[in-house]
């Protein structure tokens, strides 16, 4: 009995630091991944300067299901960064808020909102300098400290509706 108790104590002692370290390492990694996903959202914030090289892998791809055609549209890193540049010409300032994040394994899901001022011409309409807020969720997959792939959904309908770019659905019965 005594022997067993001793073995147990020794076993627990041997195990605890190892298990604690492993848990700590994995928690640390998740926190690092969350921080990186947060940096990625800062790319859309005109008041914050971050370097895409520190955030996105060279082979980065961005998948969005926000378009009028069915299915995902995929952009490579250069095409994605060009979208951000275009966006800044139209919506500045743009301020990003992170609401919460859910991290597991190599993925981080981030719920965000963006408050923008309509400051430049967009799809044939003149800027109004009005402020709009829209929400989105982005899932990032991280490999070797860089984001390699993201999937995004955001309120494109609501932003376009606010800007007057959507013809309100007309009911034939009304």
């Amino acid at each position, binding site marked *: 009995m005594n022997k067993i108790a001793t073995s*147990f104590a020794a076993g627990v002692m041997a*195990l605890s630091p190892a298990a604690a370290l492993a848990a700590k390492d994995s928690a640390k990694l998740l926190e690092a991944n969350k921080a990186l996903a947060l940096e990625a959202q800062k790319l859309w914030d005109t008041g914050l300067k971050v370097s895409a090289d520190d955030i996105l892998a060279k082979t980065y791809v961005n998948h969005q299901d926000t378009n009028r055609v069915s299915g995902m549209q995929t952009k490579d890193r250069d095409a994605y960064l060009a979208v951000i540049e275009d966006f800044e010409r139209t919506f500045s300032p743009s301020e990003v808020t992170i609401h919460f994040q859910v991290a597991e394994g190599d993925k981080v899901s981030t719920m965000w909102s963006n408050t923008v001022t309509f400051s430049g011409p967009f799809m044939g309409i003149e800027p109004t300098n009005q402020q709009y807020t829209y929400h989105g969720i982005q899932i990032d997959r991280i490999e070797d400290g860089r984001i390699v792939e993201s999937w995004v959904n955001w309120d494109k*309908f609501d932003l376009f509706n606010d800007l007057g770019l959507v013809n309100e659905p007309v009911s034939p019965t009304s």
Partner: protein
Amino acid sequence: MRRFFMMVMIWAICPIPVLAQDSETLEANKALARQAQQMWSTGDIATAEDVYASAYVNHEAADDGKTRPVDLKTYLAVIADFHRSFNPIDVTVLSQTAEADMVATRWQLSAVHTGDFMGVAATGKEIVYGGIRIDRIENGRIAESWGNWNKFGLLSQLGLVN
């Protein structure tokens, strides 16, 4: 030798229950989030109380930049309405991430437009759109969700927006 064996046994066994409990909860939470998505496929809202807390709140983003909370009864009515306009409906879960009491689920829905929808009579068109939903789980039920989906895509595939 025997003592060494015991130590190895304890070392090998001990972490399992501790880690398993955590990952079991995460897997159960993921399964619950998938069940909630499945309800969109089947339209079987009678089983809702197995999935949702009675005080469930669904936060859908509204066009004023805020989120507009919807209660369980209203949310289930949206599912039932959708089933009057589309049949069959198929929801595929594409990925999930779970941490603590939260699960993020990325999904894609395909359906055939077989009944009136927002004033448009059945077109027989197949529509496809996707979204991401984050569920918060409390006592084995979904207590709260935040979602974002391709409303623009759905409405434009049906010719409801230009």
